[in-house]
């Protein structure tokens, strides 16, 4: 297997194993686990090798089918997309351990369908990260959305309704993006991102370009549930089957934020996007409101999983705000936050999956005294909570450091205040649960612990990824320096 197109095999292997799972998985269910884990392990190794190649030889531009651009579809693998590929495959592998167990418990007999959609979604995400062609990006965006509609609709009870709402909102977002691509095609006559970036500044059609940018950005904002357009996310992620939530929550919104960064940096070039400061100020205020409202809404939730979905909305506000600060610290913080936030969300959703596997529900009053019943899971939850709050050794602190620094450099004080306020709300949110879990069974004040004290820990198959992710939070925290120096700093254009 020649390594120049290894990155495509990182995408093709999960796709082929999805077909295999669909074909054979239905009647012999024990085939599913090896296929899923094998293909994802391969894609993890593949993406790490690709990352190595990209860091050594610089950006790889790859034409599918040997049709030279601007006719053929061109794939661009620069350090940012290589990093995202590694992130997606690692998160997918860790999440699939727990999803295998959850699917077995929640969707008996329909695991084959579940894991077909699961693997196609991962292949679609890899494709999204690789593509260098605007329309191809739309197609892959739809592939990932349709598979996640399907995954969410497999849940019980309200899942179908929330999936339908997600379909409506997702299609609106995708069509807005398609409209934006249409306007660009009219203006520049090409769909290749590099060509668009070259031709757009030369045209003097400010109104049309601005509309094109506006359509694309609004489309992506709907897809990433940026605050005013977030209504679909809480229902969709909390009613989905646990296995789907563990995989979709850490990846979907973060990859869409990556797309927004790719569009701003490589398609429209920051000069065009950040020309009018009423645009940047407007988005900064929207991001600040998103952060504060996301965290505040999370306060009102009675269920841990719904609370985490609102925190995801607040985190999207972090990243969008970071990007629109339009300075190098802000952008570094946003890209770093993509990595950190997906790991943090993965850790917390793995905890939710483990608790639901054992207890069936994560409503706050069912978490009473759970420290004693599931000590390892709750220890990982505490570490994830520290990362979300932004306690130093964990990775959450460093991306928050860059975002606040970028906010101070850019003079956007409303963004800085919003970040600090949301950290404080996170403290309340998470310590409310830690206190509940820690004190829980003793709330009625007598001294020695009682209630079900014997360990009722999640199965080892679910604890493995949880422990690895928790450790990863600290490892990524300490490796912020090297991560930034040789990956993120290469991406930030000079004039920023």
């Amino acid at each position: 297997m020649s390594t120049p197109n290894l990155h495509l095999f990182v995408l093709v292997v999960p796709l082929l194993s999805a077909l295999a799972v669909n074909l054979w998985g239905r009647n012999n269910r024990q085939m599913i686990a090896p296929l899923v884990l094998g293909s994802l392990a391969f894609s993890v190794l593949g993406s790490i090798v690709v990352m190595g190649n990209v860091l050594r030889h610089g950006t790889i531009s790859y034409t599918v089918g040997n049709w030279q651009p601007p006719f053929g579809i061109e794939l661009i693998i620069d350090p940012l997309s290589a990093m995202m590929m590694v992130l997606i495959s690692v998160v997918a592998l860790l999440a699939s351990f727990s999803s295998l167990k959850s699917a077995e418990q929640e969707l008996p007999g329909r695991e084959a369908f579940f894991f077909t959609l699961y693997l196609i979604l991962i292949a679609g995400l890899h494709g999204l990260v690789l593509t260098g062609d605007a329309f191809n990006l739309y197609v892959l965006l739809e592939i990932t959305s349709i598979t996640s509609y399907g995954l969410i609709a497999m849940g019980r009870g309200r899942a179908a309704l929330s999936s339908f709402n997600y379909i409506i909102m997702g299609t609106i977002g995708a069509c807005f993006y398609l409209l934006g691509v249409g306007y660009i095609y009219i203006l520049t006559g090409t769909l290749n991102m590099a060509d668009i970036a070259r031709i757009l500044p030369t045209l003097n059609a400010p109104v049309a370009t601005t509309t094109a940018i506006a359509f694309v950005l609004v489309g992506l904002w709907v897809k990433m549930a940026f605050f005013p357009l977030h209504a679909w996310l809480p229902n969709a992620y909390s009613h989905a089957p646990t296995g789907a939530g563990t995989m979709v929550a850490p990846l979907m919104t973060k990859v869409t934020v990556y797309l927004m960064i790719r569009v701003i940096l490589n398609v429209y070039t920051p000069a065009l996007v950040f020309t009018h400061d009423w645009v940047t100020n407007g988005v900064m205020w929207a991001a600040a409101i998103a952060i504060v409202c996301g965290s505040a809404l999370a306060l009102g939730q009675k269920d841990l999983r719904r609370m985490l979905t609102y925190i995801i909305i607040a985190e999207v506000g972090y990243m969008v705000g970071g990007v629109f600060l339009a300075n190098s610290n802000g952008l570094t913080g946003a890209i770093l936050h993509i990595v950190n936030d997906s790991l943090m969300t993965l850790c917390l959703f793995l905890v939710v999956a483990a608790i639901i596997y054992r207890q069936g529900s994560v409503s706050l009053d069912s978490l009473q005294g759970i420290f004693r019943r599931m000590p390892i899971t709750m220890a990982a939850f505490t570490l994830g909570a520290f990362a979300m709050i932004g306690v130093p050794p964990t990775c959450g602190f460093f991306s928050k450091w860059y975002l606040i620094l970028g906010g101070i450099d850019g003079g956007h004080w409303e963004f800085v205040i919003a970040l600090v306020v949301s950290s404080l709300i996170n403290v309340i949110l998470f310590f409310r649960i830690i206190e509940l879990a820690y004190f829980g069974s003793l709330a009625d004040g007598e001294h020695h612990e009682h209630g079900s004290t014997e360990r009722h820990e999640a199965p080892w198959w679910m604890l493995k990824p949880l422990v690895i992710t928790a450790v990863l939070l600290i490892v990524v925290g300490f490796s912020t320096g090297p991560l930034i120096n040789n990956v993120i700093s290469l991406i930030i254009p000079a004039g920023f």
Partner: protein
Amino acid sequence: MRDINEHTPGEDLIIKTAVRLMVPFAQLFGLYVIVHGHYSPGGGFQGGVILGAAFIMLALAFDVKTSQQYMTIRVNTVFNNLGAAIFVGVGALSAIFGGLFLDYSALDKLIPMGPVEWRSFGIFLVEVGVGFTVMSIMVLLYWNLSSGGAMDEGL
């Protein structure tokens, strides 16, 4: 509303005989569209839809059970995955043999036929794969939607 399964002769007879006559020709035309796809109007998707329509006509005129006699669910799944596997497989194969992904001229090393011929033959293989998948998906869609997933009598 009278029970739809109760067969009143006359009105159904015409439809059934018409469908029985049309289905083979529809399938032949569908194959024609697929085969000529790579250098004239037509192609995998359109041909697949026509083939699928043939089976759906059967299901409409008779019922889901009869159309399943001609294509069982198992066969449908095989067609479904086989088609997609052909598409991705040909692309990956050409990548394995040194070319770029989906660059069929690299398959020349497998069976020497000249890179240009391989390009057109490669596209043809892909069209066939797409045709299979689209046909089976269309039929599967109709089966599921009409019978609410129970795959019994349908509309």
